[in-house]
């Protein structure tokens, strides 16, 4: 019997480790997102970039005129806009990645049943997970570059180290995306998903995007320092303001652990996530 092309392609991976989960073709899943982007989702995706810019204008300059220059936490005085810009970049990396890996995955799973279609082909669940995550990171990369193109000419990135804020934003997005997908694999109802939104608000408001943690009492500071967004903001702020020290490695490490943990649980729960 003459093998069909699809069969021959699937057989090539046969016998390799993980072949019942992974067909080595997450690219096809990314390609799907790209086609959808070209024909229908471009406006929704590209406009996501305006959000941090508006916050920067309103808070950085509007509120900033009453605040003046502040201590960035490293002893250097910087404008309020330069202080919050990295915070907003980190926050938007978090928001985008969380949305893509939670609500978006939940919707494609339960409402549009898109994943049912994908998994009826020779793709494995890991192809789908990696493909969706890769697209989220690509999107995060574009947002981060767009934000930098706006804020650098405004003089808000005083250090050349600031360029590294772009890959840092992608790392942060990866951490949140892996975590978000793992969480989503345990949720089955809209009400449970609503918890994610409720949890995000305090994380956004208290992780030090808008002011140094020193405005809070000591015990609150310790609590906030456990949250991922605080590490994200400190990492990007250190880079854009050129305050390079060993602590930055600590923040990177935090995200590497988060990525590893997120991927571990996501992979473990793949069947629950995509093959319900």
């Amino acid at each position: 019997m003459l093998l069909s092309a699809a069969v021959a392609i699937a057989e090539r991976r046969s016998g390799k480790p993980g072949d019942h989960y992974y067909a080595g073709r997450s690219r096809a899943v990314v390609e799907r997102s790209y086609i959808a982007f070209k024909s229908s989702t471009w406006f929704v995706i590209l406009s996501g970039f305006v959000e941090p810019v508006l916050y920067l204008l309103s808070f950085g300059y509007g509120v900033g005129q009453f605040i003046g220059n502040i201590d960035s936490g490293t002893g250097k005085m910087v404008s309020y806009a330069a202080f919050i810009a990295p915070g907003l970049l980190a926050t938007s990396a978090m928001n985008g990645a969380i949305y893509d890996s939670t609500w978006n995955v939940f919707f494609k799973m339960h409402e549009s049943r898109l994943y049912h279609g994908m998994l009826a082909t020779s793709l494995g669940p890991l192809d789908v997970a990696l493909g969706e995550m890769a697209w989220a990171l690509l999107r995060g990369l574009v947002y981060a570059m767009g934000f930098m193109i706006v804020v650098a000419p405004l003089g808000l990135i005083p250090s050349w180290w600031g360029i590294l804020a772009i890959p840092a934003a992608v790392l942060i997005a990866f951490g949140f995306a892996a975590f978000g997908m793992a969480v989503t694999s345990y949720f089955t109802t809209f009400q449970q998903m609503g918890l994610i939104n409720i949890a995000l608000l305090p994380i956004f408001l208290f992780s030090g995007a808008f002011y140094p943690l020193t405005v809070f009492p000591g015990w609150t500071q310790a609590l906030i320092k456990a949250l991922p967004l605080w590490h994200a903001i400190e990492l990007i702020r250190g880079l854009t303001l050129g305050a390079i020290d060993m602590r930055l490695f600590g923040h990177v490490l935090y995200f590497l652990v988060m990525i590893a943990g997120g991927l571990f649980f996501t992979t473990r729960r793949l069947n629950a996530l995509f093959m319900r």
Partner: protein
Amino acid sequence: MSAVEKKRPVPRFGALYVLEARMKSMLKFLWVISAIAILNPVLYLVSIGLGVGTLITNNIGPNGIDGVSYLVFIAPALLATSAIQGAMDEVIFPTLDGFKWARIFYGINSTPQTGSTIAAGVFLTAMVRTTLSVLAYSGILYLFGAMDSPHSYLAIPIAIFAGASFGAVMLAFASHVNNEDMFFTIVGRFLIGPMFLFSGTFYPLNTLPIGLQFFGWISPLWHATELGRFATYGHHISTTMVIVHVIFLLTMLVLGLIIAFRQYTKRLAK
């Protein structure tokens, strides 16, 4: 009069039956709604009011903006924002669900209910939710000492009024929607976001460049906030401007409802 008409009169206050049905489905989400209604104000007041407020105090002293503390300054704006947000959610989702997702309006419409009574029922439900969350919010503001002036209670009807105006406009807008992805993007990123950030919410509108002040003038949030500040701490405002603010909000309310009632009727008949 035929026997049929005697037995089944067309309800005179049809909207109340729609209200009853909507209330039942809203109660299922009670804990989410209450969590948002209580958590939101507390988190924003502490984070922005106290947190950012500390930075402002460090720079220009404790009563630097409009002669009051930063928390007192932003409180009426946050109150109006929460009213607007609550009213908006409660008209948008039922409208999309009714026309598009579950198409329940077509079911209701096969009873003696009309497009207008359904629209009115949805709107009234949103007002119930707005009123309750404004009351809860005001209670919290009071505890934070942001409602200390003798006329502070006036901020409550003002906020509800703002919710009604914006809710009416969103009811009209949502009843036209076919592509909800696009709609949510436009509303979230180009309507609510900028409105929240550029309506003099976090600093006096007149400290913005004149080109950006225009945003505030067409924003119901700014009009409501000006009135609210007048009520809670005696922010200076001329009688003419009070009238302008009220007329602006009233116009939005009336126009929104007229367009919404018409479009509900038209879309159900399609």
